[in-house]
């Protein structure tokens, strides 16, 4: 992937921003930092942002990626936004359970379920 290319696929539907990852493995620190900056750019321009992060393409992620998700969650809370995660592979969901982040995040089995959960 060329330097500077987006690591996200972004779709705006009504007032919900849907984000998918370009990479199957979210492990590289520079990429993780870029993902954090790109998502921050999306929510910093909105009031009461609604964000759905779709993990359908993701096979691996590291604790650094979890850290970026927590930072995004904290920013969403500060902006009184709503964050949903969806389509997380069972092996990766186990990582969320081990770290107890399954309690912190609103995680849904499908895009449809996540979209329906926005208030």
């Amino acid at each position, binding site marked *: 992937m060329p330097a500077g290319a987006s690591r996200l696929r972004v779709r705006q539907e009504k007032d919900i921003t849907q984000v998918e990852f370009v990479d199957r493995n979210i492990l590289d620190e520079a990429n993780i930092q870029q993902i954090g900056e790109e998502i921050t750019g999306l929510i910093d321009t909105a009031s009461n942002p609604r964000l759905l992060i779709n993990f359908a393409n993701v096979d691996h992620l*590291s604790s650094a990626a*979890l*850290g970026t998700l*927590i930072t995004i969650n904290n920013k969403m809370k500060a902006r009184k936004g709503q964050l949903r995660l969806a389509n997380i592979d069972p092996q990766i969901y186990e990582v969320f359970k*081990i*770290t107890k982040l399954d309690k*912190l995040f609103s995680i849904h089995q499908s895009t449809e379920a996540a979209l329906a959960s926005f208030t």
Partner: protein
Amino acid sequence: MQPSSKPSPDSAVLLIPNDREDIERAEEMLLEGMGRHGYPDAARFAVRLALEESLVNAFRHGHKGLPADTPVKVEFAVMEDRVDLAVEDQGAGFKPEDVPDPTLDENIERPTGRGLLLMRAYMARVEYVGRGNRVEMTYKRPAKPADAV
């Protein structure tokens, strides 16, 4: 990546700089060895995660303040019943007991400090030796394949 001893198919001692391509080559070497021994996907996911987390700790924390090209030593040996893995940095070391529990309510929204927790969750043994700059880990093959139907 410079092999510091000639790697065999299922064991190696490698010196790895903080470069994504070198890290992924080392991971592939390890995961291919596990594949040859019939370890299931779940086992390879676990070992890869432990290697990733230990390398992040080595480069980000262990080598803080050291030249960017300072390599980390990775050793692994894939056997029928287990995988031994060691990651050694050239830093001052640390005390794992000083890392706060990231699952506590007061820490759950902190973005760092989960690598060691994940290593301990997936590996049968995680031990810091020496001055705390070398972590030795063992993954044990489950009695029944983890992804058996």
